[in-house]
């Protein structure tokens, strides 16, 4: 029974990883870009949401906001930050061909953004973990002895909806066709009339939305936010993405759930200290034995970086 409870918990935990992993895999799949700001965007949504719910709008414009509204603004902040990242990682880049580290430029810029955003949050809000005033914690229901918290079920539903919606967007819509064309060959897509300057920001908006959503759900479900909360989630989401296969959305879903399960089972059988080794060992093994992951494609992420 305890094992089943752990399994349910791992699915709930995995759903947060899934959302962030989908954001990672989307940027890699379309732009071949490992976006290191993703954990920071996740944290930004949570921390801005907390600050608004605790202090209210800046400059004393309002009192503390109700938490759903605060989280909504937190998500907006994540999306805006993500668009800012787009400007400086893709749009204003001066690329000179012939130098192989040039392909690493967006990645290095995103590392810069990671440092800037995270430390600005530290300066503004302090480094301590804060309690998030979400819905009251006793919204728990019991199904045959298994305890499930209602906000977690709701967030699981939201995650499923978002992923299905994203798949639809990529498969059926005009924007999605443009995105897939860019993923295939950016230059050819450009020649055939895909406006890169309009389509690429969509990837970053979706990234911001997914991270913001994950941050908001995390704040509600676990009731705690901190400037460091992105690091752990981000690294596990990367592990999930790699296990599932780079560039594959359903791979990220599967991988995120596998990582959640691995984490919970490791805690159950070996204790909390070995989680890091288990998750990263899983990642390293996948990279060495089956680099394309479970559902991934051979060609993605192979280009020079």
């Amino acid at each position, binding site marked *: 029974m305890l094992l089943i409870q752990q399994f349910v918990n791992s699915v709930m935990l995995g759903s947060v990883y899934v959302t962030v992993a989908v954001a990672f895999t989307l940027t890699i799949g379309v732009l071949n870009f*490992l976006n290191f700001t993703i954990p920071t965007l996740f944290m930004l949504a949570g921390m801005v949401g907390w600050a608004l719910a605790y202090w209210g709008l800046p400059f004393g414009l309002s009192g503390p906001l109700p938490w759903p509204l605060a989280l909504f603004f937190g998500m907006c902040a994540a999306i805006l930050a993500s668009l800012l990242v787009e400007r400086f990682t893709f749009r204003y880049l001066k690329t000179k061909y012939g130098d192989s580290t040039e392909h690493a430029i967006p990645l290095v*810029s995103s590392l810069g953004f990671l440092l800037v955003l995270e430390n600005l949050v530290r300066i503004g809000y302090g480094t301590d973990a804060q309690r998030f005033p979400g819905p009251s914690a006793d919204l728990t229901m019991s199904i045959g002895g298994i305890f499930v918290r209602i906000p977690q079920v709701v967030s699981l539903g939201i995650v499923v909806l978002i992923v299905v919606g994203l798949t639809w967007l990529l498969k059926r819509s005009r924007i999605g066709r443009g995105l897939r064309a860019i993923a295939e060959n950016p230059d050819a897509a450009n020649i055939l009339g895909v406006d890169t300057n309009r389509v690429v920001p969509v990837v970053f908006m979706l990234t911001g939305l997914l991270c913001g959503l994950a941050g908001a759900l995390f704040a509600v479900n676990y009731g705690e936010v901190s400037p460091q909360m992105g690091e752990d989630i981000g690294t596990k989401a990367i592990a999930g993405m790699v296990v599932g296969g780079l560039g594959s959305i359903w791979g990220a879903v599967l991988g995120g759930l596998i990582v959640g399960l691995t984490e919970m089972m490791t805690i159950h059988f070996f204790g909390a200290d070995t989680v890091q080794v288990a998750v990263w060992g899983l990642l390293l093994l996948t990279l060495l034995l089956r680099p394309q992951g479970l559902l991934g494609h051979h060609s993605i992420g192979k280009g020079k970086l």
Partner: protein
Amino acid sequence: MSGYWAGILSILAINVIFAYGIFLPVATGQLNLGGAGFQALGAYTAAYLSAMFGLPVPVTVGVGMVVAGVVGFLIAFPILRTRGVYLVLATFAFAEVVAGTILNSETLGGAMGMSVPAFIDWEIPVIVAGFVTLFVFYLMSTRFGLTMRATHDDEVVTDLMGVNIRMVQVCAFAIGGALAGLAGGLYAHSFSFVEIQSFNALVSIYVLLYVLLGGTQTAWGPLAGAAFFTLLPELLRTVLPQVKSFLAALVGIEEPVGPPDDSWRFVILGALTIAMMVLRPEGLITRTMIERLRFRRSSSAREQVA
């Protein structure tokens, strides 16, 4: 020399060695985001040998360096099979596995850390850093250095020219790992204490940024990058409060200003990174710049200016 400056010089020397350790793989076109892992290997080996067997410092640091180098050599084969994003992730994962293993190891003190009995003063790291700098400059001037640069610029062509690029990359990775381990060993003895929290993922990121911002084309780059970003926070510590009190006095507020939040240095590092990537992605110090300084009046330099 005051303890304050001695501490800064030790850190500077260690960062320079560490930056060279990451520079070597990056100079062959391999982004190594696992620097902290190699540094931790060197530091913990030195700490363990010093604490358990009381071995002298040169032996502990030397063994730490060899251990990190051998591990670098062994994992280079599977890790360098991967490319692009996968390589970055694999090196990152390697550092996390090292950190996780040490965290769970009873003999290495786990999360409590380990104290190191033998202490070294600032002179030794500085002298070692000097030798490492000379070594890397020498290495870059040899035929091996030439093949490293060629591999960095174009792997396919270099391969066609008959260079064993696999060998070059593995060697650069392993030597880099050894240098990072050396930096770790010196760190352990300079601060008399190691704990795994000081070898986290952010450390790997910082050192990679030092190298990339300094420039990967010449051996001057890591030196400039590491020196700049080690000394900058010290400068900020004195300058920022003055600016702040000046601005406050301008608006008419008279209050004492404390030292700035330590986080500002990372904000500045990040902002400089972004600005550099937009304006000068090849790094601060480039080959052209060195040549221009060296042959100020030669025709080749003038051509490159034009």
